[in-house]
Structures are given as structure tokens and as C-alpha cells.
């Protein structure tokens, strides 16, 4: 692996991420049972999901260790995803 981390360290980071993901899952379920208001609930749900996704992409999918150029493959579609969704939101309102 290009990261220069030892296998033990990597393995350890995997388990840490795993625990974090489980905690975040529990958190998101717990938090959304409380009704903060429509928008607030959506924001909380999306933020936690983004955090989880970031962990998966960054550690499990090796974006942290790998060639930085790979991040374009995530960045470009996300940009267009946002464009599409924002336009559609205007349409839906």
C-alpha cells in the first residue's frame, strides 16, 4: 500500500471506522425519532449520512492513502449531482 502505514495501523483504522459507523447509525436513528422540524430533521439526517459516507470513502475506499487524482472521480460527479438536484428543487417548489 502506498500509504506508508503498517498493516496493523490500517487494520486498526478499519476497526475504528467500523465502530464510528455503527455509532453514527445509532445516532441518526436516535436523533430522528425526536422531531426538530421538517428541515432540521432533513439536515441532521443528511449531515450524518455525509459523515458516514466520508468515512467509508476516505478509509475503506482508500481515498486517504491513494493517488490524490482519484478524488476527481468523486468531485466531478458530485458537482453535477448538486447542479441537477438544485435545479430539480427549484422545479419542485
Amino acid at each position: 500500500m502506498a500509504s506508508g502505514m503498517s498493516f496493523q495501523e490500517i487494520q486498526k483504522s478499519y476497526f475504528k471506522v467500523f465502530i464510528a459507523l455503527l455509532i453514527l447509525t445509532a445516532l441518526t436513528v436516535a436523533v430522528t425519532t425526536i422531531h426538530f422540524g421538517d428541515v432540521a430533521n432533513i439536515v441532521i439526517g443528511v449531515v450524518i449520512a455525509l459523515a458516514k459516507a466520508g468515512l467509508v470513502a476516505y478509509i475503506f475506499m482508500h481515498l486517504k492513502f491513494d493517488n490524490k487524482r482519484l478524488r476527481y472521480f468523486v468531485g466531478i460527479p458530485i458537482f453535477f449531482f448538486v447542479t441537477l438536484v438544485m435545479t430539480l428543487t427549484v422545479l419542485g417548489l
Partner: protein
Amino acid sequence: MEAVLSQEKHAHAGGHAHGESFIRHYIFSTDHKMIAKQFMFTAIFFLFIGGAFALFIRWQLAYPGQPIPLIGQLLPSTWVNAQGAVTAEWYTQLLTMHGTIMIFAVIIPLLVGTFGNFAIPLMIGADDMAFPFLNMVSFWLFPLAGVIMMSGFLMEGGSAAAGWTGYPPLSAIASTGQTLWIVALFLIGFSSILGGVNYITTILNMRAPGMKMFDMPMTVWAVFITAIIITIGTPVLAAALSMLFMDNFLSTSFFVPAHLTVATRDMSRTAGGGQPLLWQHLFWFYSHPAVYIMILPGMGVVSDVLSTFSRKPLYGYKAMVYAIIAIAFLGIIVWGHHMFQSGMNPLLGTTFMVSTMVIAVPSAIKTFNWLGTMWRGKMEFTTPMLNAVAFVSMFVIGGLSGIFMASTPVDVFIHDTYFIVGHIHYVLFGGSLFAIFAGLHYWFPKMSGRMYDERLGKLHFWITFISFNATFFPMHILGIGGMMRRIYDPTVYDFLKPFQPMNEFITISAIVLGFAQFILVYNLAHSWFYGKKAKRNPWRANTLEWQAPSPPPHGNFDTELRVYRGPYEYSSPESVQDYLPQTVSPEELLAQRQRHEERLAQQEHAQPVA
């Protein structure tokens, strides 16, 4: 590593096929050149089917309700009436299938499938694609989809008939043919994505040693950017098609509002609550970039051809690359200009108009750079060059007529009229198809190992060029007159009656245009077997594919490649010849010059004696 590479390379170079069976070599081949040929033959086959559909459509428009000459009586009664004239039902199926076939089964497979597959590995000095097996799967999904789509004609209710744009609710409440259309497009989309993944990986990873991104020929750049558009746009279409499939097949209501009054279908299960405009957004999010998928590779091919036959470096190479990137980027965010009259928020109309107007800028850059390339060149008018020159001129018309649509108030009037039909054909026929003709002739010697017949090539070009303009230019006038597209019989309307002679003229030109394509097929087919044997580099071109034997064997190259410079060093003062291939090393160049000077000296020496 280098040593191992070259050893293996020589092992491959000689062998055409290591005792491959017929099936492995010709049918389920993983060789990019064979796949390119397969794409080409299949797409040309579909070109004729789509063309025949167009002629049926034209016949009906020029002579409404009159029997189709010669074959009218032979067609099944579900297609034509008792006299042999096209029925309104078949007419809508024809126009739908004409659009779909020409876009998804002709132009995209020819430009992206054929040229992408053939040119990428050869032009970057690779032996094959990064994923040869995926490449094969990507091809075979395409004829499969073609068969599925065409089988709609045999179904009850006929094939898809909602236009190639397939707007719901019309497409969501349609017959089996529409379902097949959805499935077929999904498969073609998947095939495109596999191709796109393959192209991007190949171009990023497998360029010859020394070849930087900015040493790539424009064709490779264009296909690379196209592949990026494909991977970003096509999946959105796939998602939209999935939802349309659910609507059509399982009566869900993604795109179907409540309480529709539909006679042809039981709507009791449909809950409603959907939004028809949602489809249009998702569809155009793919299909507007698809227009660029269909034109960008053409621009790349034309850039290469223009530079080669002007014997001059491509003017503003980097600007051309950035223009392609700009077109691609803007192309993905302007989809809403197809929807100015759709009932979407007019505020979106404003924003989409501005972005659409801006897209004209990179297109203008490209045009001016092509002009700059020809400036003080030494042009040779071979068939590829003629077609490329026609491309530029036709693309200018197609681009300029687009400005009318981009301006929202003018679009109010010309939207969904023949002005649009004229515009799209100037872009897709005058643009893409002329680029395809240019590319087919340009790479024909490399593909087949033989030269095409130059005289037939020019004959085909001139007939096509003239009848093309005679067919599609008057459509702009029809559009200004207000003639709606996709109508079965324009004579129903009083204000369209004066245009009937023009419709007849268009139809006659279209028939000439259609039949002229047989010259192309005859020329290519005949030359494939009986043409003059082609040299390795008949056009004295710089790019890497001309360093390979004609036709290239399995493994493509028989020499070690290393790239030292950009692809457009024509008429370079450094070189003895008027071209300077990318692979010639500086030392070799020096040696060439020395030999040349010695020869000159000898001649001078010899002259007084003579």
C-alpha cells in the same frame, strides 16, 4: 521491464491471430480493431434502416395520403392503409424510431464506438484497450438492443411512438413497443458506460512513453472528453428510463399525475402524484450532453484531418482542447433550454438562456481555429478533407441557427417547428455525419489495408453535400413559416398549405441524399477487397497510428514507440519532409537532416558535370 516489454511485443507483432478460431476472431473478438469494424458495420446497417424510415416520413409529408411508390402495397396492413400509404399510427412510430436509431444506433456507435475503438489505442500507441473483454460486451449489447428495439414493430400496437424524446405521460401509457424501446435504450446506455469507462482508463493509463496529455491528437482528446460526458450523463438517463419503465410496466406514477383521462389504458391502478416535467429534466440532462457526445468526436476527427491535409499545425491546439472541455462542461448544465416552453419556471428559462448563449463562445473558438489552421496552408482536397471542410461550414450553419433557439422569446415561436428539425440535422448530419465520412475515408487505409476509390469518394461527397443542403436548408424556412414537427399531414392547416411545394422539393432532395449513400457503401465494400494496397502512411501524417502496418496486426505496432512531440508538426522547418511524426527522436531527426544535406551537396557537386 523495458526489455521484457519489447520481447513480448515482438512475439505479438507478427502473429495475426494465435490460431484463434473464427468465432474468437470475427464474432466474439476482444481486439479493438475488430470491435471497431463490428460497430461500423452494424451502425451502417442501421443508417440505412433509419434512412429508409426518413424517406417514408418525407414521402408522407410531401404527398400526404398517397401510396408509397413501388413498395407501398407490399408492406403489412398494420403499417400502411389499403392503398399503400403510410398510416398516422405508423408515421408516429417511424419518426420515433428514425430519431432513436439515428442517434443511438448510428451516430454514437460510429463516432464513439468505431472511431473511439479504432483510434484510441492506435493513436496513443497502445496494443489494445485497457479492458478488451468489457469492450466486447459493450459492442454486443448494442446489436442486442437494436434487435429489441426493432422488434417493437412486430408487437401489437407497434413500436414506440412517443418521439425519440419519449415524453410521458404519452410514453408512460403506451404499448409494448414503448417498453421494448425503454429496455433497448437502457442496454445501449449500459454499453456506452462500459465503453466510456474503457476509454477513460485506456487514455489515462496506456499512452506511449513520452506522450503527455497535451501530446494527444484532437481525436483522442475529443473522445476522452466525450467519454467523461458519457459516464456522467448516461446514468441519469438510465435512472429516468428505469422510472419510465416502472410507470409503463407496473403503473407506478413517477411521471404521471392523478386523474388522467386515457382511453387506451386502464388507469385505475395508477395512483398519480407524478410530475411529467421531471422526465424532461432527467432526459435532457443526458440528451443535451448527448448532442455533444455526437459532435465532439467529430470535431476531433475534423481537426486531425484539416491539419493533416493543410500540411500545417493545428491552430491553437491548447485553445482547441480547452474549448472542448468548456463545451463539455457547459453542455451538461444547459439542458433546460429544451424546456423553455414546457411550463417550467420561467426564471429557469432566463438562467438556462444565459448559459446556452455562453456555449456559443467555445464553438466560435473552434471555428476560428479551424480557419486559422487553413490559413497559409497547402491544402490537398482528398475525400476526407472535402468532408472535413464541409463539416466546418455546415457546423457553422448548425451553430448559428442554434442561437435562435437559445434566445427564449424567439424560441417561443420556433420551438417544436421544422426550424428545430433543420437545426438538429445541420448539427447531426451536416456536422457529425460529415465528420464520420471524413473519418471513414481517412482511416480506411489503416482499417482495411487498402485505398478507397478517390473518384467515387468525391462523387459521393458532392452529391451528398448538395442534396444535404437542398434537403435540410428549406426546413428552416418551413419552421419560420410555423410548420410543427412530427405532424402527419401539414395540409390540414391553412397557414401551412403554401409550403407544400417546398415539402415536395425537400422530399425529392432527401431521396437523392438517401440513394447517394449507396455510393459510399459500394466504394468502401469494393475497395475493402479490391482496392489498391495502402502504404503504412499514405497521408504522410504525424500521429502514431500511421507507424503501424496497414492493417495493424494483433498487438498493433511492430516497432518500439516513444513520443517526442505534439501531433501536428506539419511543415516543420526542423524536418526534411513536410511532416514530422511524433515518434522521430531528435537524434534521428538530426541524422535525417545530415543525410539530406549530404544529398544536396552531392547534387550540387554533380550538377556542373551534367
